[in-house]
Each structure stands twice: as structure tokens, then as C-alpha cells.
């Protein structure tokens, strides 16, 4: 069964005098456990689609369903709450909370979810060990390399066991070695926990690992290919 269903999505930005059609009738279904890359040139609409799938933005027309819940029907507060309990995020610029340590960043979402201190510490520690950054648990983001920060970001996204993880250009700021390590890690998590990953990327190395590549151009899906790897 699909966990994400995007039905005839249109997105028009009216921020300037000229309306910009970022998405023009996108239909997409993503199933549990997928490792999907959304690719396309700059301005093709992939980040817009990712934002809509991630519940950060809503379509101008069409509907987006997450396991049967129409995100358009949720109030702003409920949408935030929905993201908290269902969606994990990995950002291009890591975007860890600078004043919190790696451990505290990993615990952050669990804390928002109201998980008791003891349980969240145990879970955060397990995840940090899984992403192989436990030895840096007391370091703040400023004391970590880009690759290490992105590992913590993945740990943060995984800690709450979301239904799927949205990753917008997660390797854009990483060197080759860190990119390879990160992708291997994400793949491992995908296989181990059946976590669904959806990437927006330009990076060929990400595409090489993806099991499905959705190509988007001018706000439309132009190809959708599945791979056996």
C-alpha cells in the first residue's frame, strides 16, 4: 500500500506580479520502504514537490495523502503535529540546532513527542551508535565536520521512527568520502528498518544508490524508473 499519494498536484507561486507554475499536475505514489530520488534540473519543481510531500507546503490544486490523511485538511497546528509524528527531515545544510549537542539534537524530536527522558536517551544513544557518531555525542554542531553533522541530522530524523524521511540535497555540502558514508548509512537504515527515504538531488552518487528515480521537468514528471540493485 502507498504511504504517499500525490494526486494531480499543482503549485502556483504568486509572490511576484507574474505567477510561477512550479508544479503542473503531478501524480505520484510512494510505497513503504522505497529509496527514491527525485531528480531534475534547477527550477524543475523537485524541491517544491518535496516540500509538499513533507507537509511544509500545500498544493494550490490537487491533494496529498499520507496513509490516507489529506494534508490539505489539516490546520497549521495539526500539520506541524503531523510532521512531528510522521515525517523525518534531512536538510542540505544539516540545520542542526547549534546550541544543542549531538545527543540533544538527536533527542530533540523525541522530547517534542513527549517521550520520557530515560527512553529518549536510550533511543538517541542507540541511533547515534548506529550512525557511528556516538563518540561525539557531547559535541555541539560547531565542533563537528560536515559529514559528522549530517550523520547527526540522519540520527535526528531516524530517532522518532517516522513513516518516511525527506532529504533535500543531503550530500550537496559533503565531500566524496562523507557522501559515500552517508549514502551507505541511509541505505543500511532503509534495509534494516524499512525506512522510506525520498531525496531531491542532483548528485549522481545518490542516483546510483536509488531504487527508484523520478525525473521532473517544468513541474511535470517526465520519467519514473525503478531499479533492482
Amino acid at each position, binding site marked *: 500500500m502507498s504511504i504517499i499519494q500525490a494526486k494531480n498536484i499543482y503549485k502556483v507561486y504568486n509572490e511576484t506580479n507574474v505567477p510561477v507554475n512550479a508544479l503542473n499536475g503531478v501524480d505520484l505514489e510512494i510505497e513503504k520502504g522505497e529509496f527514491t530520488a527525485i531528480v531534475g534540473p534547477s527550477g524543475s519543481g523537485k524541491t517544491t514537490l518535496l*516540500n509538499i510531500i*513533507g507537509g*511544509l*507546503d500545500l498544493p494550490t490544486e490537487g491533494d496529498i495523502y499520507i496513509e490516507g490523511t489529506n494534508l490539505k485538511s489539516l490546520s497549521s*497546528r495539526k500539520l*506541524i*503535529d503531523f*510532521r*512531528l*509524528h510522521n515525517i523525518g*527531515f534531512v*536538510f542540505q545544510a544539516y*540545520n542542526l*540546532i*547549534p*546550541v*544543542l549537542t549531538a545527543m*540533544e539534537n538527536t533527542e*530533540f*524530536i523525541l*522530547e*517534542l*513527542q513527549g517521550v520520557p527522558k530515560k527512553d529518549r536517551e536510550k533511543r538517541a544513544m542507540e541511533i547515534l551508535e548506529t550512525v557511528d557518531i556516538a563518540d561525539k555525542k557531547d559535541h555541539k554542531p560547531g565542533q563537528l565536520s560536515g559529514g559528522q553533522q549530517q550523520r547527526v541530522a540522519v540520527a*535526528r530524523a531516524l530517532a522518532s521512527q517516522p513513516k518516511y524521511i525527506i532529504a533535500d540535497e543531503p550530500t550537496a555540502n559533503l565531500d566524496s568520502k562523507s557522501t559515500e558514508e552517508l549514502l551507505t548509512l541511509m541505505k543500511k537504515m532503509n534495509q534494516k528498518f524499512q525506512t522510506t527515504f525520498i531525496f531531491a538531488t542532483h548528485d549522481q552518487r545518490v542516483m546510483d544508490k536509488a531504487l527508484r528515480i523520478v525525473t521532473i521537468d517544468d513541474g511535470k514528471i517526465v520519467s519514473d524508473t525503478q531499479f533492482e540493485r
Partner: protein
Amino acid sequence: MKSIIKIAWRSLWRNRRRTILTMASVVLSISLALFMRSMQFGSYEQMIQASVNQVGNLQVHDTGYWENQSLDRAFFEPKGMEKTFENIPGIKNVLPGLKTFSLASYGNQTRGILVSGINPRLQNKQTNLSRKIAKGGYLTKPGEVLIGDNLAKFLKINVGDSLVLLGQGFRGITAYGIYNVAGIFHLPSNDMNSQLLYMSLKDAQSFVYPYQGGLLTDVSVFLKNQSDQSSVKAVLESRLGKKFEVIPWQTMLSDILQTIRVDNVSGQFMLMILYVIAAFGIFSTIMMMTMEKRKQYAVMISLGMQRRRLITVSVVETFIVAFIGILIGIIIASPILYYLHFNPIPITGDMAKMYLEFNIPPELPFSIKSHIFLSQTTIVLVLSLLSSLYPIIYLSRFNVLNAFRH
């Protein structure tokens, strides 16, 4: 809440210098405000105390006398009235008095004056009247009076001369008498020097009503502590009954209170300027912090943090800056104000003479009343929390995607 305080606290110290500068502006403004207010309230208290020392904390009259201060409202001291004032904790001194208007004449000169009948010994104990005698001596014998220097000058009368008094007595009789001028006083008030005459209470009673002694217009009650006023007033009212009124100094000295209120407004205006400067300091810091953390806010909301929790973080940040600033300000100012309260700044020269004339110690007192600290703390906290309206409004309209784009 713990995590909110943790994030707020650490966020503040990410930019240590800015936080310290903002706190310093709070420290400076609260210290200056406390200093200004303490000095201002100290001088008010001194002014009030000096005036209360003259009229008493409370005055007992025949009911209606205060509204219509006529000799017709005088009363004969009831038997055992002195017992009314006994066994009331807090009473320091009780001065019965008789006041009436009369004409004073010497040679070809005549003037309308206020005759004040006093108990010379108790009055001197309370107001140091004998120290205001510029010429001659204090009241020692019956038939003696003290007059102001301006009145003496007007009447061209001197110590040892006889002064004729003629006026209306009690119950419509004519009051008259010839009195020996024992001394000429100089008080701070020109009006008093021109129009006031003191004589012993017995002489005054005999002057206005020679047929029966014990006539009084007022009994001034002096207290050890101002804080006892309401309880003493209540006891007196219950003991005296409805025939007598007990008037507090706040009613008797309403003109002084009015002057203080007007002066207080000017003090508040100066404080307002001080606080506006401090508020801008806090506000600009809060604004910078908010703008700086746009992306962090966007991330937190994306991850699932509700806006109201983010708003709480911002408010807590502001509160911490204000609270620590206030605390340090009070820690710095308190010992200084306590020292100045117990060791007031001495006033010298002509100013000191003027203070002494008003029966006020020649020094600049500082008040350490808790309301000064409480009000200034509240004002700074409220101003700080008003500054946090900016992040509240900003976050409630916050667009996550715009923040990511910029």
C-alpha cells in the same frame, strides 16, 4: 519547560558580548532608576515627617470641625479624656490645643491673627519651638505670648511690651486680654511669622471662655511609627464615638501631598526617558536575535515544534536578560542605597540653614521602601516582556519556506 529554558539560556550565550551589553543596559537603568527614586522618595518622606511633626499623625476634633474650623466647634475636654489615649501601642505624644482668630493691637497698629493655645512643655518637646525664638525667651509664666517676627515688626512691638487681643470668644462672648510678649520667633513660613501667636493653653481657654476651663479645638496625636496610623485611628474612633472625628495627616496636609504628586510626575518623566533608552536597547537585541535565528526557527517548526513553544523560548530569553540585569542592578544599588539611607548625604551652607529653619535635618535622605524596588523591577520586566512582542508577532506570521529560501 526544562528544554525551553536550556535552549533559551544557551542561545543567549552564543553571542556573549551582545547579551552582556544588553544586560549592562538593564543594570544601568535599574540602578539609576533606584537611585533617583530612592532619593526622591527619601526627600518626600523627610518633608512629610517634618510636617507631621507639626500637626501630628492624627488630630481629634469635635465632629465637623475640620470642614468648618470655627471656635463654635470647640469642645470641653471630657472627664478622663486623657485615658482615651492611654494603653494604645504606638502613641508617642498627645498635644491638646485651642485655636482661634483674634485682633492683635499695639499702639496704632492692629492685625488679624491666629491664636494658638499650646502646652508649652509638650509642644517644645515635639517641635523644638524654643529653638525658633529669635528674641526674648520661651513661655514660662501665665499671661505670656510668643509672636512671629513679621508680626512684631508690623505692630512695632518688642519683647516685654503688652499686646492687646480682642476677638470673638466661645458662645458669642467677646474675648479680650492684655498679654506680655515673652519672645519673638522666626519660623520658615512667612505667613506664620506674620499671623501666628502662641500662648499657654490655659491662657487661651481663659481668653475665649473665662467661665469654664478645658475648652479645646483639637488634640494632636503623634505616633512612633507611621505604620501604626490606621490601627491607632481605629482604636481612637471606637473609644471616642461619633461625637469626635479623627483626621489623618493625609487629609490635613493634602496640599503637601499634592505638591509631592506634582513633583513625582517630573521624576516619573525622567524615569520614562531612562526606560525608553533601556527598552530600545533590549528591543534591538531581541530583534537582532529573532532575525538571526530565522533559519533555526524554520528548522524547528519543520521538525514539529509548535510556534507557541518557540514563542515561549523567545520570551524566556528576554526574561532571562531582564531578570539577570535587574538582579545585578539591585545587588549593585542596594548596598549603596542602604548606606545612604543610614548615612544621608550632609547638606551644608545656606541650604542647611533653610533645612534647619523648617525643622528638617540638613541632609539628603534615601528611602529604602520595598515599593521602590518592586515598582522599578516590575517596570523593567514589563518593558522587557513588551519587547518580546516582536518575536511573538514575528513567529505567529512566520513562513517556514521563506526563511529557508533566504
